């Protein structure tokens, strides 16, 4: 029931917004997202302390003849992603308060729609339903980018949509292929366990094919080098909240799906092809980091940094060991928070100074010290300084990759250095030194922006120092998953 609420509450709120066109759109959305967050927290506690309650799962027969169920469940792993989604949405909604969007009831409505679909993606235990939610999540974000994006948005969102959709179609083919091999009492089934079983029963060649078919969809979504070129443009052109949704949560769809929908499905395929995929991921880390160094637009810089981060996450996942996977989960949580904060900062910069160009900024620290501190904490979180949230994930990820192959880990570890280079460089350009042009005021932060940044910073530090509550869940969840991937 709780799990259904997580989908239904945002969905109904979105419908309410679409229909009512109320003046207090912002308040309604904030209220809805906070309620959802409350439910998510409750669900997480329940997972931890009372996992067998049937409040957490729901299994309705949707299309019986095809073995399709409306099957959603909050378990150890999904609760973390659900929590992330529920945690970020209020922040994203709040961050939009200072922007005046035309037709804002639609804007907020679409965001809530998106939340609903994302929740579905993370919770579902039915392969078909997964695909449906996966695509459904694409539509609101497409419209958000299309209707409220920057210049040239039509062509860019177009590419984004077609590109990701192409990937999804391949995934659909891969999933159907596995589905065709399922057999539950003579019936085919889309149930995740049936799919796992069917996937494992395939021979090496078949698993390899399925692996690539599905991996491509995730690789495009995350995105992994060299399927990433839609991403920077889309991130830059999307409205800030769209970018936050894309990078903060939607990106995690890819990584999470990799964990839940690919690794256990094709263990042999992973063994045979995982290496190539890891290498692609790792190339992406260094490649995107290098490119981030020379970016002039701060938002684009963050976009590339996101590619680098996700490359490491993906590499960690594909190593399929406890540390890599657990690190991936932790890093997803951390990256979600950090990147949302970073994009908000980019938006604040744009609103207060009219530009995001590094060369035109500078000296803001003189004008607003509090902002500088918050910004710095976020930067430190994203360069994974110890005792920030980014560290635990990155450390575990790298140790997972190291376990897999030391040389690859060494190469991937370059991100430790390069990340510091581009993050500190941009921070210096924006905040430090003297102001270049003659704008000498930056102004105080809006309360909503400040609230978002402070909450993000608290999360960054708190979960950096004491990650255990989340980490223990990730550990447990990954252990269960590994028991499926590597039964012996």
């Amino acid at each position: 029931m709780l799990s259904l609420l997580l989908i239904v509450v945002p969905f109904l709120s979105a419908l309410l917004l679409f229909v009512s066109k109320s003046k207090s759109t912002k308040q309604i959305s904030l209220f809805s997202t906070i309620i959802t967050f409350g439910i998510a927290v409750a669900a997480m506690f329940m997972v931890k302390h009372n996992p067998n309650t049937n409040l957490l799962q729901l299994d309705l027969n949707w299309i019986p003849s095809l073995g399709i169920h409306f099957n959603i469940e909050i378990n150890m792993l999904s609760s973390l992603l659900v929590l992330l989604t529920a945690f970020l949405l209020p922040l994203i909604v709040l961050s939009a308060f200072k922007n005046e969007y035309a037709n804002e009831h639609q804007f907020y409505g679409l965001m809530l729609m998106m939340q609903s679909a994302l929740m579905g993606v993370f919770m579902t235990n039915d392969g078909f339903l997964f695909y449906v939610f996966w695509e459904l999540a694409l539509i609101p974000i497409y419209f958000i980018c299309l209707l409220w994006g920057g210049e040239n948005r039509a062509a860019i969102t177009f590419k984004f949509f077609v590109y990701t959709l192409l990937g999804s179609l391949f995934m659909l083919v891969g999933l159907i292929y596995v589905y065709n091999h399922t057999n539950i009492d003579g019936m085919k089934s889309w149930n995740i366990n049936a799919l796992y079983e069917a996937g494992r029963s395939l021979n090496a060649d078949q698993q390899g094919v399925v692996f690539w078919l599905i991996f491509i969809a995730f690789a495009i979504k995350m995105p992994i080098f060299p399927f990433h070129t839609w991403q920077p443009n889309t991130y830059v052109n999307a409205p800030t909240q769209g970018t936050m949704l894309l990078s903060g949560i939607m990106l995690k769809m890819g990584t999470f799906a990799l964990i839940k929908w690919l690794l256990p499905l094709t263990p042999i395929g992973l063994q045979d092809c995982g290496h190539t995929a890891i290498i692609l991921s790792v190339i992406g880390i260094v490649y995107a980091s290098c490119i981030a160094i020379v970016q002039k637009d701060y938002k684009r810089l963050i976009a590339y940094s996101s590619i680098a981060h996700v490359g490491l996450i993906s590499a960690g996942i594909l190593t399929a060991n406890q540390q890599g996977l657990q690190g991936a989960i932790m890093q997803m949580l951390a990256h979600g928070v950090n990147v949302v904060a970073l994009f908000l900062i980019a938006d604040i910069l744009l609103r207060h100074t009219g530009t995001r160009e590094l060369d035109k900024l500078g000296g803001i620290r003189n004008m607003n010290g509090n902002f500088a501190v918050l910004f710095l904490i976020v930067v430190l979180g994203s360069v994974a300084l110890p005792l920030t949230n980014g560290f635990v994930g990155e450390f575990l990820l790298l140790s997972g990759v190291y376990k897999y192959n030391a040389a690859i880990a060494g190469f991937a570890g370059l991100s430790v250095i390069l990340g510091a280079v581009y993050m500190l460089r941009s921070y210096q350009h924006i905040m430090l030194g003297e102001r270049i042009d003659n704008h000498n005021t930056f102004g105080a932060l809006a309360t909503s922006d400040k609230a978002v940044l402070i909450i993000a910073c608290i999360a960054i530090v708190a979960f950096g120092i004491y990650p255990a509550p989340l980490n223990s869940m990730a550990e447990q969840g990954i252990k269960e998953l590994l028991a499926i991937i590597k039964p012996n």
Partner: protein
Amino acid sequence: MIKLIPLVPLFPLLGFLVNGFFGKKLSKSLSGSIASIAVLASFIISVLAFIELNGSTNKSNVIDVFSWINAGDLKIPFQFLYDNLSSLFLLIITGIGFLIHVYSTGYMHDDEGFSRFFTYLNLFVFFMLLLVLGNNYLITFVGWEGVGLCSYLLIGFWFKNTAYNNAAKKAFIMNRIGDLGFLLGIFLIYITFGSITYTDIFDKAGSVPTSTITAIALLLFVGAMGKSAQLPLYTWLPDAMAGPTPVSALIHAATMVTAGIFMVVRSNIFYSISDVASETVAIVGGITALFAACIGLLQNDIKKILAYSTVSQLGLMFLGLGVGAYSSAVFHVTTHAFFKALLFLGAGSVIHAMGGEQDIRKMGGLKGKIKITFLTMFIATIAISGLPPFSGFFSKDELLAHVYEHSKALWLVGMLTSILTAFYMFRMLYLTFYGKFRGTHEQEHHLHESPPSMTFPLIILAILSALGGLLGLPEFLHLPNWMHHQIGEVIIMKGKSLITLSHEVELILMCLAVAAAAASIFFAYNLYLKNKVLPVANESELKSWQRLIYNKFYVDEIYEALIRKPIDAVSDVLYKYVDVAIIDGVVNGVGSAVKGVGSVVRLAQNGNIGFYIISMIMGIVFIVLFTLLYR
């Protein structure tokens, strides 16, 4: 008291929080006092705990704080290890830290970022304490990166100045290069031992293949190279002098930069097992020592001289570590902390008196004007030059004796370094305090001794620099070497760290060192005091070898040309050509190819019935023929 050890890092953390959140609202004196008292409290606990430790038989105390990271078989508790090594470092950090806090209340008194400064300083102390207290590599690493962060913040303390910001960034990034090595070392340890907890792994090191141990030791050493500014990662340290002088004293002389030494001593078993690794450490240390000392010869910025001297001294310590002289190295860390902190603080006092001037060519004749500063700095200079009976003499001598036993060539390098050290230190002393005042009239008028809050730490440190040698009196003279016993507890393979030289040889070495230093001082005396030679103002008047040294062997420029520029260029190429042109080009190319083919294909739809019929018939003929023939 040992149970209270978690309080030691907690106090500075609290100080940090108080100053960080409320600093702006507090008065300067309150803000400074809070910070200083926090460190003082830690110092007091450290002292009490130290006494307890020395009285007890249990030399290795593990204190659980909380459970931190668990990932399958990788379990990393937040755990402290309080033993002879960490207890000593605690004393150094909190003791000298406290003095420098006190000093800073005076030095930074007029700065607008006063409370911010103490916020950072307290945070630094917190991280430094974590670094030495951790019972596993990861907590050490947390401290390791944390002090790097504080170093970054403090170097760039005056954030309006772009050069300072660049220096800060450089420090952070250089350190991160080392940190990557450290991190990889940690991973290898984890893979090898299944744990990264000190108390679990050191005993097992003997049963691991030496090649693995070598790899671990070398990777860890990469980390040490970054943090302790060894070749080739040393260039950040001289630039780090951009920070306020107390910072240079605390972070870039007494504590943070010795973290590398600490870590190597902590991991001594690896270096004892692996000859390759220890050789490397020794050679890198030796070369760095000599190299930095050379550069120090011709520097004119008072803080830069001290910075290169620090690099050089750190090199000496690594030289010692490389030959297995762990306790001597720690001994030298201790004495170096005293006299180098003193030198920096003294330099700070000089700069304070000179109204911000750092160029020794514009100083001179200060000894009468700022007596306490002069006297204390004089003591420190003697100490660093290795003249008995000051502390530097004992520690350096013990260290070089070890080196001599191990390798004559390296010993020669060490000797040369100390000769050069004596020279440039006295050059600095003479140019600063003797002769005539060369600054502006205004500066001369302004000259004054620093307030008591600054001179008090100077005096304490001067006493320590003078008497610090008592901690490790030469054993061959049948005197008690306390340091050796103290550190000996944490050395797992003791054999390597014992000196087997005959007493005569040691005595000769000692005399030789003293004589050489004295000669070098005399040379400096002749040059700068008697002949009143002044460093030239213009670079073009230098001889070519001097110019080479003056420009620090162009290392920064080489790095710029070999690393930074290529990375920027490659990144630019990657972005403009590979990413936008090739990869995105392919993606867009597919798109436009579809459109292109589409616009060609649609031409077939030309509207002419005749053509449609022909196409149909061709289709039919093809299908029929193909099918029938194919069958």
